[in-house]
């Protein structure tokens, strides 16, 4: 792709001397720092809100609401959920990634697809499907079981990508020193997967804290479900806010834990040349047995939802396809998804550019703000925005703008990751050439850099859109009167136990998410150079 050179601006003779180029570039960084700082300030809203509410509630009431048996119960529940869900996810993700990337299991490509596909099934649709198949399912083990099925792709994706990128020379060296294949895997391959394992586990850990629909449906109480319960009994009272405070502390604790475990070892290869692709291990007859693992998992994570949905759709017949209501919910969901993706991406541009072009201490602080806010559950963000808009910024109360702001806060990290990768691939010289030819700095960034980074930008927009499509709690709490999205309608119908009528909404959500999931999968392969 070439960049159209703009015709040189002809300055009037009387105009002042244009600034020296270096100064112009500094100006660009400055204005972007300003913008990024502004976004960071907004990201601090939820945290500031929690602190402010705690102060307002007063120490005595606050501690009475925080240090009570119920909170202890929820803490134990949440800790158990994390402790029992993550290990099987890690083990399964590593096993599946190895099978699909490093072994000659039949149909490795297909299994790789099918392992990622559950991402297109929203977590609460996954539990709705299981409730349909096994109505008595509830409690901790049911929660762990469905969570593993719903969130496994978050670990599988980075682990598989990392495994594909590893230089097999290391493994060869270890083998030549007499290690058995199994020990090579444990001592050479696994340690190199650490970053992917940490990142993926963190993502899942945060999802477990933030998810509402999945656990509400299978009757397992976490902080998020308890906050929604409190919200439904007393709107934004102190009890809900104090629970939100504990939840925020848990999220930040997870972030810290991940930093600790990740460490700062070096993982890049040294030396000249490029790594050759790793050879696939021949499993012989065992490969048919090995195939049972991905087969069983996709059967559980895709087959069961497909069966349950199919059954409800057939049982409901044509009566459940209320065309006008479905269409309007579908349209509204699309609008929110598009608006949310655009707003979030625009908000992430300054920070993404700075992390690539002007790294430094201040930039790292600002970037931290951008990332932490994505770790906050939607219920906390919504609680903060509800109170702030109703008390301070009434014109924004119950408006589309506020909903988009909530989405922006929740999905900022998704946008940032994609944008950074995209911008990093654009040579800085082009940007500078554009400035030298008279473009304004920010204009040059938008018209040259962003245009070249477009594929990456599109991918991260898709990711945000997917998040918005299946977002439930913030949408329920903040949406303007009369709003009906696929997720909220689905939720309302399942609450009335009208599982058949809810099925078309679930099917549409999956249909919307599938292409985005495919894109994600393709992108993770491309990043790894295949």
């Amino acid at each position, binding site marked *: 792709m070439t960049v159209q050179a703009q015709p040189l601006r002809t300055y009037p003779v009387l105009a002042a001397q244009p600034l020296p180029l270096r100064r112009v570039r500094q100006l660009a960084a400055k*204005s972007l720092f300003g913008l990024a700082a502004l976004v960071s300030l907004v990201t601090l809203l939820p945290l500031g809100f929690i602190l402010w509410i705690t102060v307002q509630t007063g120490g005595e009431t606050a501690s009475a*609401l925080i240090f*009570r*048996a*119920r909170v202890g*119960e929820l803490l134990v529940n949440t800790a158990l959920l994390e402790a029992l869900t993550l290990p099987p996810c890690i083990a399964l993700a590593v096993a599946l990634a190895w099978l699909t990337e490093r072994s000659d299991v039949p149909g490795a490509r297909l299994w790789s697809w099918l392992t990622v596909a559950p991402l297109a099934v929203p977590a609460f649709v996954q539990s709705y499907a299981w409730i349909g198949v096994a*109505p*008595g399912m509830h409690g901790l083990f049911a929660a762990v079981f469905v969570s593993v099925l719903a969130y496994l792709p978050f670990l599988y994706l980075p682990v598989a990508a990392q495994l594909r990128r590893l230089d097999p020379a290391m493994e060869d060296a270890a083998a030549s020193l007499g290690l058995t294949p199994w020990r090579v895997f444990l001592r050479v391959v696994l340690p190199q997967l650490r970053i992917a394992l940490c990142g993926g586990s963190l993502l899942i850990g945060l999802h477990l804290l933030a998810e509402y629909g999945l656990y*509400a449906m299978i*009757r397992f109480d976490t902080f998020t479900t*308890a906050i929604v*319960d*409190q*919200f*439904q*009994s*007393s*709107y*934004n*009272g102190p*009890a809900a806010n104090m629970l939100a405070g504990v939840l925020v502390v848990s999220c930040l604790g997870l972030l810290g834990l991940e930093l600790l475990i990740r460490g700062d070892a070096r993982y890049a290869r040294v030396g000249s040349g490029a790594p050759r692709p790793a050879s696939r291990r021949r499993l012989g007859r065992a490969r048919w047995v090995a195939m049972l693992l991905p087969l069983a998992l996709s059967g559980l994570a895709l087959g069961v939802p497909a069966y349950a949905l199919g059954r409800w759709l057939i049982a409901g017949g044509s009566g459940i396809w209320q065309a006008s209501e479905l269409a309007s919910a579908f*349209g*509204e969901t699309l*609008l*929110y998804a*598009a*608006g949310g993706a*655009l*707003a979030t991406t*625009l908000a992430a541009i300054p920070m993404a550019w700075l992390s690539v072009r002007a790294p430094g201490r201040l930039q790292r602080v600002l970037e931290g703000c951008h990332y932490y806010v994505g770790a906050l559950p939607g219920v906390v963000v919504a609680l903060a925005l509800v*109170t702030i808009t*109703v*008390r301070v910024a*009434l014109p924004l*109360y*119950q*408006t*589309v703008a506020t909903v*988009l702001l909530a989405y922006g806060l929740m999905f900022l990290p998704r946008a940032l990751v994609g944008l950074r990768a995209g911008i990093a691939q654009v040579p800085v010289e082009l940007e500078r050439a554009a400035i030298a030819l008279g473009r*304004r*700095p*920010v*204009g040059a960034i*938008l*018209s040259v850099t*962003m245009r070249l980074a477009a594929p990456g930008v599109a991918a991260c927009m898709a990711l945000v859109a997917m998040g918005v499509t299946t977002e439930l709690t913030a949408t329920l709490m903040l949406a*303007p*009167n*009369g709003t009906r999205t696929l997720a909220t309608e689905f939720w*309302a119908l399942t*609450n*009335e*136990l009208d599982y058949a009528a809810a099925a078309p909404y679930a099917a549409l959500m999956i249909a919307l998410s599938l292409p985005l999931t495919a894109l994600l999968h393709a992108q993770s392969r491309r990043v790894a150079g295949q």
Partner: protein
Amino acid sequence: MTLMPSSLMRAAALALILSGASHAVRAADEGITVYNAQHESLTKAWADGFTKETGIRVTIRKGGDTELANQIVQEGAASPADVFVTENSPAMVLVEKAGLFETLPKDVLAQVPANFQPSSGRWVGVAARSTVFVYDTRKLKEADLPKSLLDLADAKWKGHWAASPSGADFQAIVGALLELKGEKVTAEWLKAMKANSTAYRGNSVAMKAVNAGEVDGAVIYHYYYFGDQAKTGENSSNVRLHYFRNGDPGAFLSTSGAGVLASSKHKEQAEAFVKWMAGKHGQAVLRDGDSFEYAIATGAESNPKLEPIAQLHAPKVEPSKLDSKKVSELMTAAGLL
């Protein structure tokens, strides 16, 4: 923002206009906004009937009783709501105490008997629901059934009954218990409930669990059973209803209310809607529709399948005495919330 290239500006503007468009469309074609905590299908039937007759559009925001009540209190004078409709009285009382309801015209109030409205005339009952104990006929015989709601605190009921404590429905029953028996008895009963009962989210889910044999019985309202029987009966084929009667707290008849907000900019249309709900046509929706809630207006008939109101022997509870804030505190203290 002259720094933005025009193409991007255009795209951004377009997206914002698009996402704002649906909102604008709603705002332009005014009508009234109803904060609705009643079952959506019922309020929708009411709203559709009303719109058909008067041409006034109705926009519905859905939520829980106390959630929306607290929301209205927070919104204060800026509330977008014109009418508030609930499933139970405590939420109405909450808004009334905050002084946000307009007194209803006499002709609206005159349609409903005095025991289904507060003496202040700030809101009016539009439907009612009876507390019941729904039980699994395969597990419990008539002789085993609790004589009073208070019996469920006994150790012998441990692990044998369910409810939906997070819902305003159940909280209204606790409100009645508080009003009839006082704080001490209520707090103890709630503590026993935490130990003895299984919590489900929603009355229909609780009934479904009883039907599936997960738990022997549940404290819910009557109409879930009739609604399910009228549909497929798949969630109520093994259960029967037990009415406590004798003025027991467990025979509590909960009043669904409707009121007009003092801050409403469309008071006339809002009052017309409340009048319509409590009037002949609105009450007929209760008799003929699939809600199975009791019609309460003077002379209105309920669905013939229901146990007549007169035979429920409900306790006398002044609807405006139900204190949702206290209930929520007591339940939080008992660890149910």
